């Protein structure tokens, strides 16, 4: 039997870094196939290569029903080849009607005037919706007025229109993130409807429980390679699947053990912090301690670090060394003055000005303290930039080179150095090892631990359980915007992982 979708030898290299290497993958007709892996594992790269968003390196091939469609894959021809993609944000325009959203790009037109034939369009949309058991949705309803699960249906209708039933492949790229909990069952039954007719469905998902529940087979990626292809889910349980995704293989040192740190009191206290998806968080981190925060994707974890740093408005207060900073009128400048250094997740957007030099970036937070109003001073800037480059082994060690010319890992080292050199009282990190290579990751984690040894209170917000296990003294697990559990040493990455997913185990999600 020829595979519905087959990928052979697909690779992708960005600026000398191979993010996907020689991927082989096969999806059969009528199955639900899950693609799993951590951030940076290469799974989204694989999807983007198949959908033609990225151009693959020379030599890879993509087949649909044995017919070669690339590489290179032409995004414009995908629909005709039977491939459809439903992205995380669904790509719907709320102000337009269902009909307009579904038919965009393939409107029926009148012969002479070239006007859109709304009647023909509406009929086509109604037909597709009925096929999906969504006949109750009128094509003229505005998408904004639909329930979330219906919106997913509309996105699927757009992907499936003008298709023969049972043909093709539909790829759901983290689509279930857009769907509220109570609507998931409807989504899953829509998926089953598609596969029952022979259409292949691919789901890209972080939610391992979901994968076990609806997927027939699983393909796992790790560090740019396909490590397991088409494993039947019948042979898996959550623990095995987790191991597959994380690939526990002990390449990270246990810095918390090898670099013991003395607790010194003081530090930072969060008192009733609220804002974004955080509902109420109270916690402490003493000087000399690394405290981790983690949680699943919808736990509110991503809102926490900016709140503590005063970068987003919130409620409650943060107390730094006895000084209370109310979050109602928080500002970054005030939090910074209190001694809190914040290393944001979005390295390019918020961490470093990439077109400026390493020296300029590294010295920025210390200009006012070290320089005079009419003279920035040159000696200390040179010394500081060189110290950062030496301490974090930044290569090439050229302080006058623009940050953009460095690799991702080296940029992250520069970013860490920028804030650690000032000897902050509190260090707040937001997923610092995202998209850095293995070597740089160890360097970043070691620097994180070193900051605590040097007397800083370190708050590490991360979804990478390996990182947390490597450097943290304590780990708080967030759930629905509040602290659900606190883990104390000794713990392993597996312990943290199962603590994160404790609430979903056993429940039928």
């Amino acid at each position, binding site marked *: 039997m020829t595979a519905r979708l087959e990928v052979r030898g697909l690779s992708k290299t960005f600026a000398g870094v191979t993010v996907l290497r020689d991927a082989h993958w096969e999806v059969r007709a009528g199955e639900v196939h899950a693609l799993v892996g951590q951030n940076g594992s290469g799974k989204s790269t694989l999807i983007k290569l198949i959908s033609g968003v990225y151009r693959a390196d020379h030599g890879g091939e993509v087949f649909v029903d044995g017919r070669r469609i690339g590489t290179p894959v032409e995004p414009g021809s995908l629909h005709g080849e039977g491939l459809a993609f439903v992205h995380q944000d669904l790509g719907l325009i709320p102000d337009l009607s269902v009909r307009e959203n579904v038919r965009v790009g393939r409107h029926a037109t009148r012969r002479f005037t070239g006007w859109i034939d709304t009647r023909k369009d509406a009929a086509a949309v109604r037909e597709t919706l009925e096929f999906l058991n969504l006949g109750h949705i009128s094509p003229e309803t505005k998408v904004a007025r639909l329930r979330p699960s219906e919106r997913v249906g509309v996105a699927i209708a757009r992907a499936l229109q003008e298709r023969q039933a049972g043909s093709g492949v539909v790829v759901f790229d983290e689509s279930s993130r857009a769907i509220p909990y109570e609507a998931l069952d409807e989504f899953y039954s829509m998926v089953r409807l598609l596969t029952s007719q022979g259409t292949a469905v691919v789901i890209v998902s972080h939610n391992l429980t979901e994968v076990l529940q609806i997927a027939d087979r699983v393909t796992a990626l790790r560090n740019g390679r396909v490590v397991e292809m088409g494993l039947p889910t019948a042979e898996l349980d959550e623990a095995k699947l987790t191991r597959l995704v994380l*690939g526990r293989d002990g390449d990270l040192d246990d810095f918390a053990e090898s670099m013991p740190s003395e607790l010194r009191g003081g530090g930072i206290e969060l008192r009733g912090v609220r804002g974004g998806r955080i509902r109420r968080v109270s916690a402490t981190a003493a000087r000399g301690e690394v405290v981790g925060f983690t949680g699943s994707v919808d736990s509110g974890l991503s809102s926490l670090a900016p709140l503590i740093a005063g970068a987003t408005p919130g409620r409650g207060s943060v107390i730094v060394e006895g000084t209370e900073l109310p979050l109602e009128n928080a500002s970054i400048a005030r939090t910074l003055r209190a001694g809190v250094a914040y290393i944001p997740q979005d390295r390019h957007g918020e961490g470093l000005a990439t*077109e400026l030099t390493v020296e300029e970036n590294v010295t920025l937070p210390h200009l006012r303290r070290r320089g005079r109003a009419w003279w920035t001073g040159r000696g200390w800037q040179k010394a500081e930039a060189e110290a950062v480059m030496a301490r974090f082994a930044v290569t*090439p060690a050229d302080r006058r080179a*623009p940050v953009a010319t460095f690799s991702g890992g080296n940029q992250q080292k520069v970013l860490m150095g920028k804030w650690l050199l000032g000897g902050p009282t509190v260090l707040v990190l937001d997923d610092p090892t995202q998209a850095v*290579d*293995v070597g740089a990751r160890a360097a970043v984690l070691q620097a994180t631990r070193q900051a605590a040894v040097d007397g800083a209170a370190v708050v590490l917000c991360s979804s990478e359980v390996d990182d947390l296990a490597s450097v943290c003294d304590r780990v708080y697990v967030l759930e629905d915007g509040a602290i659900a559990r606190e883990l104390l040493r000794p713990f392993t990455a597996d312990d943290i992982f199962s603590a994160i997913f404790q609430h979903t185990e056993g429940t039928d999600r």
Partner: protein
Amino acid sequence: MSSATPTTTTTTVHTAVSPARRVAMNLLSRYALVALWIVMLLILVAVVPGDVSPVNAMRTVFSQITPVVFLGLGVVITMAVGEFDLSFAGIFSISAVAVPSLAVLHGWPLPLAVLTALGIALVLGAINAALIVGVGINSVVVTLGVWSIAGGLAFLLSRETTVSGLPPALAAISTGRFLGLPMLFWYGLILVALVAYIMSATPIGRHMTFVGSNRAVAALAGIAVRRVRVGAYLASALLSGLAGVVITIGNGGFNPASATAYLMPTFAAVFLGTVAVVPGRFNPIGMLIAVYFLITGVFGLQLLGLTGWITEVFYGAALILAVTVSHLLQRRVRS
């Protein structure tokens, strides 16, 4: 991300370049515009009929009574912090007209007229800042509107003609000569040196660079981003007002219809300046070099018998060429 064997390694291959060659390349990238300027001057001297010595040609170029250096400084400041200001031509015009109008037509004492002119400029700059930084309206729209309003009000103040009649003795303030060059040139030089110093050697200048490069990074480092942006608009307006005052005093009066002509040379100089001295960044010294580079070009074309239309074509071409070269340089840096 985790694996037993690190599969991705980044190797940066550095081709060995001799230090001398690197210094030479560095100088070339910084001062190519100066070299080009000298070449242009020499060609001019050779091609133009009659007896023109390079020194004389140079002196003629530097003796131009032009507000472009002042205006360019304002634009460099706003551009450096990532803002866009079109209104300088209008602010220049209304300040230049206000001095003779108030002093001659309304009989105000001259110092008061000058102060009022500068005050008007600051008020217009504050309007820019309030709408762009305060309310968050698109800077192109706001400054385009302020330009038009200020330019229009200048005609109202001047009663739609050239206002003149300022005491000729005062003209020496702007056009009097020192070392054979007009005072206006020296004022420009001093201001450029001052702004260049602030931008390159003080914390304020570094903060400006970061605000212009990445506002989020600047804010997270505790920089008062809004204050820097407001300051840039005020500084730009004040410099435009100052330009108006010194030009109107030097000429004894001002015709608001002439103000628009300075828009293109100013933008051309500012962008051309980004390929010199500090390549890829808006910088005052590069702008100063570019101003006189462009004046030389126009001057030469005029000597060759091309006048009128050629000026605008030349400035337009220089602007596009400058931005293209600058863009290509940046792309090379990033890759």
